[in-house]
């Protein structure tokens, strides 16, 4: 076995992912390879040092979470929204890049953010931004309300003065003043945009995902 192959097995060894045969191969290599033995020791030392960083959580973390939960306003229920089930006939999605969403913050504490600050970690972060709400469901909402909807993953300052309601899934629906306000928001933050399939929008909303 050459050293490059041993390095793979060293990681497997550290992660307890090696088979017995692989462990035997590694042991055999290490018996006569001083640099690889040193590498393994160094890697074990790093792992051990990393594990030593583990700390206890703040004593009031759980209490604070529960207090915040108790203060959450009760959910309203809207008969119009049947999230599950039937998808809209056709999803008219004028999508403009999910990965260029503005940063997320709770609606209770809006603040100024730079929506174009796309991080270096976007390669996998975009996928982490799963919302558990399908585009079809948002389209259904657009159809039900005969409304154009821009989809937000984070609150933005423009929403502070808007009337809002909470949807059963925890999303917040902000009523925008008019089409211009919706377009401004869409352009500023490069948001996904949904319109009713068969109607001209009568209202404009920003949907802030939970």
């Amino acid at each position, binding site marked *: 076995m050459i050293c490059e192959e041993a390095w793979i097995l060293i990681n497997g060894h550290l*992660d307890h992912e090696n088979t017995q045969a692989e462990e035997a191969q590694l042991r055999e290599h290490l018996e006569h390879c001083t640099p690889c033995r040193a590498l393994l020791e160094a890697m074990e030392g790093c792992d051990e*040092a990393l594990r030593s*960083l583990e700390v206890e959580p703040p004593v009031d973390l759980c209490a604070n979470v529960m207090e915040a939960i108790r203060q959450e306003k009760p959910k309203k229920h809207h008969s119009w929204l049947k999230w599950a089930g039937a998808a809209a006939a056709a999803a008219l999605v004028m999508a403009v890049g999910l990965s260029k969403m503005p940063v997320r913050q709770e609606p209770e504490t809006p603040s100024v953010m730079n929506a174009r600050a796309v991080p270096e970690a976007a390669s996998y972060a975009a996928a982490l931004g799963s919302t558990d709400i399908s585009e079809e469901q948002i389209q259904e909402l657009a159809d039900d309300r005969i409304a154009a909807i821009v989809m937000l993953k984070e609150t933005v300052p423009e929403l502070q003065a808007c009337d809002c309601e909470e949807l059963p899934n925890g999303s917040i629906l902000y009523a925008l003043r008019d089409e211009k306000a919706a377009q401004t928001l869409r352009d500023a933050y490069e948001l996904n945009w949904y319109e009713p399939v068969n109607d001209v929008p009568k209202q404009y909303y920003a949907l802030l995902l939970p």
Partner: protein
Amino acid sequence: MVFDENKVIQQVLNGDQEAFAQLVQQYEKPIYNLCLRMVGNPDDAQDLAQEAFLKAWRGLRFYKFEAAFSTWLYRLTSNVCIDFLRQQKRRPTTSLTVGDEEDENAELEIQDHRPLPEEQMVQQEKQKAVTDAMNQLDDEFRMLLTLRVMEERSYEQIAEIMDLKVGTVKSRISRAREKLRRILAKSGNNFEFESSN
């Protein structure tokens, strides 16, 4: 007594709000530590851990029982941390370990002035070195090492949490370890000690 996670989740979904505390207690340590490693300071980590649990509370009805709750929660927490890091647009620079904070925390200052046993000092130096090295890694490597080494998540779970392929997780963890080791070696910390096997 075995913690019946799904039963507790069902209780919460059935309206028992207070049962959620059991889930928080079960996961507060790993979730807080993940936040701490990712964002680099205890105050932000506490806020983010709290935010993650609140999001879990709000979104629990969307949790699908076929996936592990821990994976769902880690994924959600990772997302919260990444959003925060985007917003901050900065690298974590403060120390992650108690006892070597550079802020004006009075209690820690007092602690710093007391002579420490040699072993404890050595341990703190190691922790500081590895903390500094971790902070030099990019977000993805930091998350991978935290999930694998500290949280002991399997490659499969990490793949699910970070939406990567298992093979990618494996190779990137390897690269992350090597990068961490090189950074430590460059700063004079070879850590060639205390083999665990």
